């Protein structure tokens, strides 16, 4: 099939095929590693390869496949990409091993799409078959053959995309203009498929209809009603009603880090410090009879509660049921009092980061 690749690339006999392209797996003899080489079947589709090259060169994301080389092939070109040793998300079962695994996969997909949108691109073909999970548990998005810059040239004639994953606005018969909200829609369907292994009939019609009530109900997502509601909003029929993908990513990260936060509470320095976290959720601090308060950790936030008397957060009178700023000084006793009648508590949250 591939007749004239540079000699450094030796086909290893395996191959795959996509809608408009063939992928040949080769050994790169210079670096003794596998690479995936993508060629087009029909020379008239060359624009799709050049779009893909342009897209891959703009994006810097750990969740997007790496481009190594562009080589001549017959009358056209072929692109040489890193070979991802792992399953695509259509066949992988990693995300069904635990709720956290599903959230990790969805967070990475949302991060990857967010990186793509950050450079002004739209992927246009987000689906589980176009993502792979590598041996280190990193999700990589590939197949940018349909990608476009957002803005005025985001117009196409006729349907381009994958049925079931394409947003309603992509089915308009005349000239179709679109925004990066189509990737958010496709993310919503991808999340639905990965969580439930099913795409309801209403969403498979052309164009798709409203998402059925309870479509996201499943053991993996039932613990996270907020996320279910957010994913449903990704499937809003009107693109402007869908959340941005960075918002989706940030919301997922909150739950990935659930119960992982820690706060350090230091009372008057000399009296030592205590930690608040999942194993110790409450602390009560009092300077009788001047004032007292409690801090409670609910897994997502630290909440100031049961405030009595003179309690100030960063010099502002404190109220119960409020989230505490991530680093602050809580003082008991007003400024007018003698220092013996005042007590200072420093409060600092360690926000964990999502690492994969």
């Amino acid at each position, binding site marked *: 099939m591939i007749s004239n690749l540079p000699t450094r690339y030796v086909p290893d006999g395996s191959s795959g095929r996509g809608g408009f392209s063939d992928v040949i797996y080769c050994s790169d003899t*210079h*670096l*003794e*590693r596998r690479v995936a080489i993508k060629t087009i079947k029909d020379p008239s589709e060359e624009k799709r390869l050049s779009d893909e*090259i342009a897209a891959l*060169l703009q994006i810097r994301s*750990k969740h997007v496949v*790496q*481009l*190594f*080389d*562009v080589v001549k092939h017959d009358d056209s070109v072929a692109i040489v990409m*890193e070979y991802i040793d792992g399953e695509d998300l259509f066949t992988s079962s990693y995300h069904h091993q635990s709720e956290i695994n599903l959230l990790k996969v969805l967070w990475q997909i949302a991060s990857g799409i967010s990186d793509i949108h950050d450079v002004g691109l739209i992927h246009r073909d987000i689906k589980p078959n176009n993502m792979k999970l*590598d*041996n*280190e548990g*990193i999700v990589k998005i590939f197949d940018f053959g349909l990608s476009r810059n957002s803005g005025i040239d985001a117009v196409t004639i006729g349907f381009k995309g994958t049925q079931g994953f394409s947003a309603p606005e992509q089915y308009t018969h005349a000239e179709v203009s679109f925004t990066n909200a189509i990737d958010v829609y496709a993310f919503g369907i991808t999340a639905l498929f990965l969580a439930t292994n099913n795409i309801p009939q209403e969403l498979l019609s052309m164009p798709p209809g409203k998402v059925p009530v309870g479509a996201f109900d499943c053991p993996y997502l039932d613990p996270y009603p907020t996320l279910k509601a957010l994913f449903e909003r990704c499937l809003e029929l009107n693109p402007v009603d869908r959340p941005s993908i960075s918002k989706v990513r940030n919301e997922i990260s909150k739950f990935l880090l659930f119960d*992982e*936060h*820690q706060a*350090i509470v*230091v009372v008057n*320095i000399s009296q*030592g*410090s205590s*930690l608040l*976290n999942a194993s110790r959720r409450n602390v009560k601090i009092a300077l009788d009879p001047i004032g007292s308060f409690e801090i409670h950790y609910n897994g997502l936030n630290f909440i100031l509660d049961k405030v009595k008397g003179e309690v*100030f*957060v*960063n*010099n*502002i009178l404190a109220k119960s049921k409020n989230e505490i*700023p*991530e*680093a*602050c*000084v809580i003082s008991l006793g007003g400024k007018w009092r003698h220092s013996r009648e005042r007590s200072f508590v*420093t409060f*600092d*949250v*360690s*926000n*964990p*980061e999502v*690492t*994969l």
Partner: protein
Amino acid sequence: MKGPHKQDDIVDDRYQVVGFVGEGGMQFVYLANDLVLDRQVALKTPKNPSAEKRFRRSAVVSAKVNHPNVAKTLDYLEVGSRAYLVEELVVGGDLAKSILEKVDYVDPFLVARLFHHLSKGLAASHHANVIHRDLKPTNIMIVDDFQLTGVKITDFGIAKMATEELIEAAEGGEDSISASDTAVGALPYMAPEAIEDPRGVGLEADIWSLGAMMYELLTGSKPFGSGLKAVKRIISADYDEIPSFVNSNPQFGHLSDKLVTLIKKCLTLNPKDRPTADELVVQCGLFCYPISERYFGTMKTPNNSNWGFISEDSIGDVFYHVNCIYGSRPQPGERVMMSKYSGGGADRALPVVRMKK
């Protein structure tokens, strides 16, 4: 421009030299334009062309590792007798230039974050059975200095070459060790078994080196000192006691204690008793450190013995309490690095670390 190339040289019709980045013990590094893909890359070539064979082995080895915390190997080529390795361009400086040369020591929050990311990169390489062998601050690339936008281990392959040189140096005795730049730079981070039996080192040697680097970040001193005197102390795992400022402040003590415990485990004499990279990833994951942006400012005259203000470069005055300072208290007029959080009146700084002059 040093080495075999000058500006605008084109290597193999593809890589156009646009600048000189620097040199390591073994290689010259150029900034180059990849003319095929129209992007910038790092182009590396050995200082000693006769090392070509080892250079290729090193490229093949590093190409096996694929992780966000490891600089990616993009290409390898030979032109005549000269070999080239093309690597992802990491825009930034190495850990020594970006961090160590700017502050006396690094606050535990930032150390924990670096430790976590480096453990992950190392775990990915150890999964591929690749030993780095030469982990040291100049082999770690940092994007955006203290913001740590990127943390990438580099020169995996080169390490094997360096090892060959180190072995020659070690077998040649003290004169050749001090003659080898590579050996001098690597020595403070070298595991005892890498000194005693360089050909037999395993993955555990990288764990030791990582521990030694984290020790230096947290305390500001190399655990065994530097120069040849360090050798004797390394082979008996005789590191300096951790200075008291590291743990004494309750604002940092909880995290410092955990960091010190883990660092000491990495610096265990028997390689088998050290944690694996996977175990380090798990332990670092439990640290819980803030990832807030870093700012820079100048200490003002303190309002009293306990607190005062820092004039922040772009925003204005930031409140500090002495207990938010990691290490020695900076004098008025001295530069500091800090994170800050919004507060009533003025923002509040935590942590505050003095910068070198």
